[in-house]
């Protein structure tokens, strides 16, 4: 597994490896011998290369809280795929299309109305299920194409937001 850490908002690539049975830390193309001594009560003596320090460390899930030299640090382990994700988003999308044929149960927005992400735009029913179509981003409603009781086909454009 490739390890990525976020320390104070900065993403850091550091790997713990083994060389001839001894642990080493690689970071910035540099390898340093590392030794961690558990002193009990969440206290550790950490030696990296020729530097050594005592610190307090507590783990909670993916987060480590470190107290070192009078300062607190939050270290978060990042997911490899998530960190490398391209950031595709809904920001440019202008239409909400019907996932399946159905009828309109309620219309909760009108053209010209400003909406925030998560606001209910329209509620549809199909196959005994009510589905809420919510604003996928902040914006202004350009058009609501159906009214209560109308039926529609799959992929019909239900609501449009302005670009």
């Amino acid at each position, binding site marked *: 597994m490739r390890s990525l850490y976020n320390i104070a908002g900065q993403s850091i690539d550091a790997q713990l490896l083994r060389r001839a049975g001894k642990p080493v830390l690689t970071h910035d193309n540099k390898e340093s011998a590392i030794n961690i001594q558990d002193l009990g009560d969440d206290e550790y003596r950490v030696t990296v290369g020729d530097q050594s320090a005592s610190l307090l460390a507590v783990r909670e*899930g*993916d987060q480590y809280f470190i107290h070192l030299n009078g300062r607190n640090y939050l270290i978060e382990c990042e997911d490899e795929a998530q960190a490398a994700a391209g950031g595709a988003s809904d920001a440019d999308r202008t239409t909400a299309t019907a*996932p*399946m*044929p159905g009828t309109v149960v309620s219309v909760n927005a009108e053209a010209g109305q400003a909406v925030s992400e998560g606001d209910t735009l329209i509620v549809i029913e199909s*196959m*005994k299920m*009510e589905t*809420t179509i919510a604003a996928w981003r902040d914006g202004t409603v350009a058009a609501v194409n159906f009214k209560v009781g109308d039926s529609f086909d799959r992929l019909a454009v239900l609501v449009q937001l302005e670009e």
Partner: protein
Amino acid sequence: MQRIISKIDTNSELFKKNKEHNLNVRDEFLEKQRQARFDRPQRDLDRLSRQKKLFVRDRIDLLIDPGTPFLELSSLAANRSYDGDSPSASIVTGIGIVNGREVLIHADDSSVKGGAWYPLSMKKIVRMLDIAIENKLPVVHLCDSAGGFLPLQSKVFADRHQGGRVFRNQCQLSKMGIPQVSVVLGHCTAGGAYIPSLSEYSVIVRGTGAVFLGGPPLVKAATGEIITADELGGCDLHTQISGTADYPADSEQEAIAKAREIVAQFNPREKTKIAQQAPEEPFYDPEELYGIIPQDNKLQYDVRELIARLVDGSRFSEYQPAYGSTLVCGFVHIWGYKVGILGNNGVLFNDSSLKGAHFMQLCNQNKTPLVFLQNITGFMVGREYEKMGICKDGAKMIMAQACSNVPKFTVMVGGSFGAGNYGMCGRAFDSRLLFSWPNSKISVMGGEQAADVLVDIKLAQLKKEGVTLNEEEIAAIREPVLAEYEKESDAYHSTSELWDDGIIDPVDTRNALGIAISASLNESIEDPSYGIFRV
């Protein structure tokens, strides 16, 4: 593995309202369960103490290792039958730990009608033994039953899954090398006599325990012989003379301790190795489930929000996140065990069915157990979908599911309608264990749809006769159908009929699945094999 990012606002009005509603639903369930477990007429409890017998719950407490969980199954079986005269179907069953070994426990409850077996008691014992066979689990029987409930004898005796099946299953278990211990704490009469007789080991309590083919009243009627129960089939007769029972005991406490000692002598079973890592609590609090489950099952929500509150670290490696989005599939860990999980995010379309079939094949290929979170209104209907072959794509999903050789577990988390029940591993498809949430509902189609269909048929019939109906008359046909559907589709009805292995509090789902997965690994996992996929 990526953590699910919840979009739930726990401060929203909707969340608070859902939570209030679902906590009431939960409290109602817990109260029904408490009543089934503990509410007994005082005279029955007095009778037990006069007979120096312990209450069934106390016997189980003595049997299992202190501080270990007991996964009780079908605690509300028969809650809608026999005017409530048979709480939990007069039997307690469940998975517990005895001297470090996972075992199935079957305990008769003689505080109700002498522990007589009703038809649903038979169904519950047979199911318990099926679970033992499927998961290769040893069984401890705590026997104290008057035998079949005679007023209903025609429904407990002769059919394929009635009385005889208990003994057939016991023999099959023995043949597989899975041992059973019976502790005779009361009378084991007629068919009941075969439970200890077919067990590998049996313990019998002096004074209260007895085993005989015909009890004293039957013997008197048949031959005129007058004899006490103890002389006829008591502890000393069977442990000293007949050899029907193995170990004598002077008290229930001694008998149960002896049973624990016997279980400790079983050879430890090598468990099937599946991918496993150190367990981690879910990142999102399972208590938040109450605020997510909608008040009405027909309201759609994202099943990932449930997954986030059931699995280790709320981490989810989602499979085909952009394809067939109404079926959410992916890998998770539950109590460290890697499983493939499938949850519904709407109706099953062609693409979602294909995705489900493919995902299940992946899980079978790498021997990964499957967990189904069932909230499904069915496969999509309409000409466009028939044209695309929704029937044959659904058939592929059902084929992959039904032929899966990995252990399967199902949780009914919402609606379960029509063939959706099949695709998502309903009761007929042999989930190792199947649990229901108290809000869940099961029926062949929605109540409203069924009522509409029946009204349409009626109207068409009458039209031929030249009769038309007014609104009131239509309502008179519709309303009773709706009411019946409502009653027969709720979770209490399905659990009463043993269509599941019990209703559970949603927050207990993670633990129940953990125990279930662990127990299932007592059996090996076969290589994948299927029938014909209609391509």
